[in-house]
């Protein structure tokens, strides 16, 4: 069975907590986590609901493999409607929280309504209670984590929490668990804070069992681990350099967005790369990277555990930032680094600590600061708006200032906290916002990697690399190499990645396994753990069903095919340097074919035939 088959439902308006059995028909159709929770959201809420109203629901959800010995199987997701995009939001996190939720006996925690006063939810196996959190409101995520641990006198409680940014309405607030793992994107933390819910703290001691076929399961999970260990990316690159293994690679292929996507290569890339994190600092004789770490159950261990130089201006005389904490991922190093033109590794690491401390998505934050920097250089924003700060590209001081005021919801930070789209609209330059459906781009420029442009344009949660990571194929040659500058074949490639990722995100495992695993490796592990026959073919149908359900939700929420587009800068302004010099993204050559391979109309609406084929 693998699922616990139990759902915890918390109505924050009434303060009531009830339990119910998991809908197993839906579990069979949508697997778990991303797919299953989205099905619940679709059935229980109106897509047109205001994301920050009590009528929106927020679901914390594990997958059937979460908490088992399958490598990386400690994931959970947060599914809700996004206040940033108005589309479906599904943000996925590692750490230890997901496993703890499963060990407490819950596949899903459904949070509805809005508490009249700040509270946190404490779950100890089958006992759950809402505890007043007036004393925690206004505290950072890190302080809140510490205080809840102290209150329960239990170091093994796992806590997911929102920071000050979410309380102040920052639209890209995250939910941080285990201090530096995050359900990062689309403002899921903003939704949580809108419900006056400060944290969810869980202690689970029941164990995860019910493996359908233990002999097959141990063989399949062993086989899976072997594949990960022997793969160059998951076995060597990621443990040694983390996702930061990509910084120099992506810069060289001319797809590293720089200074708000004005350019596609960054002269300072090597200074903020994974390799640079290993170099010993002159000042204190230490490297930025202390060690690598793993999320629950993960045999890859790509986490960066880092320090900032104690004498660096960003943390000088601030001892709370002198210890080790979650270091730079490629995405954060890019958004806070090259997208802002900043090549100061310590400054970027410190800004990343601030994002973790107050639970903010560093991708959207960095990209919005980059947009603000361009607005400043263009004269649309002045020192009058910033209160004196020269918000210039390349300024580490400006980066730290903008990060601090945004994560704490102070002054001009409140405007940055509205995201790049709203900021650029407010200051009369909407074309400078590098977003799709209101969500900021991640670290790959679609002029240098054509397929990822289509993946961004059609992503169900706005611009995102994790909805269909065609970079794997276009740059790394996984599962096979395609030309990053070609558009032929990309619609089919994007669809294949999108559907497979739906399965990965619904199973309880990490997307990074797919550097090494295909569904041929994943399906046998699901099949052995779960009852019923989980073939690759069935997984593919489930993946496509989930993707199409999300699409239908977005259409019902008011989005249309017209939203499947990219900013003009990427469609018209050609890359100035690198292998993609002279190229824009040729979305128009890919999008019609994409709709066709999806079985959608030319307006991007799934046809009745497609819906009926998928059982929707």
């Amino acid at each position: 069975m693998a699922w616990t088959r139990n759902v915890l439902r918390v109505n924050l308006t009434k303060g009531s907590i009830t339990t119910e059995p998991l809908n197993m028909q839906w579990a069979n159709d949508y697997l778990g986590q991303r797919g299953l929770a989205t099905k619940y959201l679709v059935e229980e809420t109106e897509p047109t609901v205001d994301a920050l109203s009590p009528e929106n629901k927020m679901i914390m959800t594990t997958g059937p493999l979460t908490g088992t010995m399958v490598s990386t199987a400690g994931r959970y997701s947060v599914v809700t409607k996004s206040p940033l995009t108005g589309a479906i939001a599904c943000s996925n996190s590692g750490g230890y929280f997901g496993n703890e939720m499963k060990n407490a006996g819950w596949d899903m925690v459904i949070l509805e309504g809005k508490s009249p006063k700040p509270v946190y939810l404490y779950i100890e196996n089958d006992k759950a209670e809402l505890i007043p959190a007036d004393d925690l409101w206004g505290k950072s995520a890190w302080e809140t984590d510490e205080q809840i641990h102290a209150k329960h006198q239990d170091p093994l409680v796992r806590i997911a929490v929102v920071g000050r940014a979410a309380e102040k309405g920052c639209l890209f607030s995250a939910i941080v668990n285990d201090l530096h793992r995050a359900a990062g994107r689309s403002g899921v933390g903003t939704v949580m804070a809108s419900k006056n819910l400060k944290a969810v703290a869980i202690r689970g001691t029941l164990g995860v069992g019910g493996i359908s076929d233990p002999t097959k399961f141990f063989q399949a999970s062993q086989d899976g681990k072997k594949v990960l260990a022997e793969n160059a990316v998951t076995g060597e690159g990621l443990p040694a350099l983390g996702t930061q293994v990509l910084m120099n690679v992506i810069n060289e292929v001319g797809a590293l967005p720089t200074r708000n996507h004005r350019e596609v290569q960054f002269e300072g890339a090597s200074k903020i790369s994974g390799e640079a994190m290993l170099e010993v600092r002159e000042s204190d004789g230490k490297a930025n990277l202390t060690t690598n770490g793993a999320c629950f159950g993960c045999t890859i261990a790509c986490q960066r555990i880092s320090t900032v130089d104690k004498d660096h201006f960003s943390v000088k005389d601030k001892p709370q930032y002198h210890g080790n904490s979650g270091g730079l991922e490629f995405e954060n190093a890019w958004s806070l680094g090259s997208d802002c033109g900043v090549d100061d590794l310590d400054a970027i690491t410190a800004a990343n600590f601030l994002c973790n401390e107050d639970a903010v998505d560093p991708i959207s934050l960095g990209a919005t600061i980059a947009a603000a920097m361009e607005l400043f250089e263009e004269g649309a924003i002045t020192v009058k708006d910033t209160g004196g700060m020269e918000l210039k590209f390349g300024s580490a001081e400006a980066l730290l200032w903008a990060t601090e005021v945004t994560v704490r919801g102070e002054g001009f930070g409140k405007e940055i906290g509205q995201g790049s789209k709203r900021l650029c609209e407010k200051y009369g330059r909407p074309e400078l916002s590098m977003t799709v459906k209101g969500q900021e781009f991640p670290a790959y420029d679609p002029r240098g990697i054509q397929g990822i442009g289509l993946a961004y344009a059609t992503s169900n949660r706005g611009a995102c690399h994790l909805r269909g990571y065609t970079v794997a194929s276009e740059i790394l040659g996984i599962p096979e190499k395609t030309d990053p500058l070609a558009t032929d074949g990309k619609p089919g490639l994007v669809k294949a990645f999108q559907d497979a990722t739906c399965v990965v995100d619904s199973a309880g495992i990490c997307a990074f396994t797919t550097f090494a695993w295909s569904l041929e490796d994943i399906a046998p592990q699901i099949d052995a753990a779960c009852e019923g026959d989980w073939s690759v073919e069935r997984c593919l149908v489930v993946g496509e069903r989930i993707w199409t359900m999300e699409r239908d939700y977005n259409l019902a929420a008011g989005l249309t095919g017209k939203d499947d587009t990219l900013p003009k800068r990427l469609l018209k302004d050609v890359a100035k340097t690198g292998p993609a010099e002279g190229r824009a993204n040729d979305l128009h050559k890919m999008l019609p074919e994409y709709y066709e391979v999806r079985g959608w109309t030319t307006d991007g609406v799934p046809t009745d035939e497609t819906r009926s084929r998928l059982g929707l």
Partner: protein
Amino acid sequence: MLRSLQIEPEKCTGCLQCEMACSYQAEGVFNPSKSRIKIFTFHDEGRFVPYTCTQCTEAWCLHACPVEAIVINEATGAKEVIDDICVGCKVCTIACPFGTVNYNQETAVVQKCDLCGGDPECAKACPTQAITYVDSDHSGLERMRAHAAQNLPQDNA
């Protein structure tokens, strides 16, 4: 030949595969809270440290037990708890200087590492060889070798 669990914290990533393997072997479910081996995270220091019973020769737990529920497995050297004899008095948990014997409120007896009868699951599950099962007489061999290597000329080291 007796073998011992050898722990090298600098190799540990904190993935808890060992805790899952241990609890599954002992309880039939993946349940880190019931694992006999525990991983401790020292966040500020950036270090993960596995810790479990070292199977003392003169075992405090064994001597403290009033009902002789802890016995030596001659083949493995492990000090094993006989569940049927254990009365759950917890004196052994007080006697152990390292805290590696613990009470299990579900079973109402104490639990500790028994080396899985000579084939420890934690060592097999560890993806980074932070936990290995080695010749008891030479558990320091790798560390000796590393120090010995310091004698090599610098350009060969």
